[in-house]
């Protein structure tokens, strides 16, 4: 449904995205994860036909975003990050206008239907300018869903919503994602984990990690990471710990401390402690490092910065 190859976009001298490659299948919810300014919005704007890429190719719903932009735009529902709306318009009239531009038959009925889906039916006759941020977000979402698009591109869909609404909107996206392709961006990792089948982590215009949510979860929670510190500078500490069965990815930190991982389920800390003491070291610290989603994220996005 979405196929991106070698996508690059320059804003003047600044390279916003660099050689992106990914795809998304029908019935898949793909999360686009990254810090602000990573290139999420730029990528989405290219996929929705808002602007052409500097280089590379993107096929959305079977059409090239540059060559057949109108065909792509007919099949894509888009919720921009800033949720631009005609604030001087009435909610119903606005959606009807957008529906007419998309030549939707029985547009009045369809507008009622989507207003019901996003829970705004009682505000149909209110001015958009008088709505709260969360409600505007939902008007934007209604606009994106109006024409039953094959591909739904949502830029930060839950931002500005209160917790109850966040749950509702996520539920709605999950429902839509069963049959259609959804690409959503977020910087809330928990959210990506919650609704996405697959997650792309993007930083500084490049994809730094791509994985299914399960795998990512396994990487995040499936292993427990522990830091060991002993008195004095001990070079062989890492080797000592490696001897314990089940221990993996052992590495020595700059300050002499050693970090290692083991599969969650069986706690290897007592064994490691015994091994360290039996080898004659004074054990100072043996502490689990709770690898939070945020830390994994920071590590992934930070490691890229270090390479440069």
């Amino acid at each position: 449904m979405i196929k991106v190859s070698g996508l690059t976009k320059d804003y003047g001298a600044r390279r916003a995205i660099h050689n992106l490659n990914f795809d998304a299948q029908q019935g898949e919810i793909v999360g686009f994860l990254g810090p602000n300014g990573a290139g999420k919005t730029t990528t989405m704007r290219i996929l929705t036909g808002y602007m052409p890429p500097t280089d590379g190719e993107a096929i959305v719903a079977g059409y090239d975003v540059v060559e057949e932009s109108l065909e792509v735009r007919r099949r894509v529902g888009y919720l921009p990050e800033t949720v631009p709306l005609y604030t001087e318009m009435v909610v119903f009239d606005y959606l009807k206008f957008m529906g007419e531009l998309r030549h939707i038959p029985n547009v009045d009925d369809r507008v009622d239907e989507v207003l019901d889906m996003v829970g705004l039916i009682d505000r149909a006759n209110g001015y958009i300018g008088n709505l709260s941020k969360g409600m505007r977000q939902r008007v934007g979402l209604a606009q994106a869903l109006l024409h039953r698009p094959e591909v739904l591109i949502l830029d930060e869909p839950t931002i500005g919503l209160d917790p109850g609404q966040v749950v509702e909107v996520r539920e709605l996206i999950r429902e839509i994602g069963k049959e259609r392709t959804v690409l959503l961006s977020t910087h809330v990792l928990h959210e990506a984990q919650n609704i996405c089948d697959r997650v792309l982590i993007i930083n500084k215009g490049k994809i730094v990690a791509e994985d299914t949510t399960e795998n990512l979860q396994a990487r995040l929670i499936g292993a427990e990471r522990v830091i060991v510190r002993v008195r004095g500078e001990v070079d062989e500490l890492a080797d000592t710990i490696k001897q314990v069965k089940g221990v993996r990815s052992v590495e020595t930190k700059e300050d002499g401390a050693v970090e290692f991982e083991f599969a969650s389920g069986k706690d290897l800390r007592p064994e490691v402690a015994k091994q360290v003491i039996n080898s004659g070291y004074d054990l100072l610290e043996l502490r689990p490092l709770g690898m939070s989603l945020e830390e994994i994220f920071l590590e992934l996005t930070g490691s890229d910065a270090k390479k440069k």
Partner: protein
Amino acid sequence: MRNIWTIAKREYDNYFNSPLAYVVAFAILLPLGIYFALILYVSAEQALFGGGVPESTPINWLFVFLMIFLSPALTMRALSDEARMGTLELMLTAPVRDFELVAGKWLGAMLFVLSLAVVTLVFPIILDNLITPGIDWKVVLSSYIGLVLVVSALLAVGVGISAIFTNQFAAFFSTLGLFFFLWFMISLPASYLQESGEVLNYLSLSNHFSSSMNIGTINLGDLTYYLSLTVLGLFVGTTAIEIRRWR
């Protein structure tokens, strides 16, 4: 085509949400009404002394003259405000051609001004009832065709300039400045240039209405002038939108 109409309809409705449009309507209709009353008064006095029959069409000349100053206010927000508010992103990701968007904005403004022009039809109707044997409706028709053409050109250029700017006041003053130049100034050097000055005379906005269509003569040169300006304005607007995409 359908999209142009959809956008024009929204634009037209939108004018009635804006106090500015009412100000413009007021600023056109009030002077016209006063002017008409004055003409009637003067003509009635003249008639007592055996003067001629009053003309029905100078009113439209004033309408066009006021549009030079007021039409930039109608078009300044057309696309610049969409860019500023971010709603341009909605339009540019909807299945709408850039030209359809620009043409829709222009048509919406046209419909608004045409509504005002329809209101001004009361003046010839009143006049027709006042004098015998009535007025020459062919001249009125010619004058209104001319009015529509001038307005079409002004609004197209205004919408085109509005697409270039993100700030509505920048769009307003650029449009106003250009109209001022085309109406008052461009033909000034013509008298010194003799033969070659004809080009400048042709380019002048003011030379194509008052002395031709407004008095009942429609000629190809004037038609071409206004239609070219209309096409040029819409072309500039469409190109400006395309450039925005590539930036």
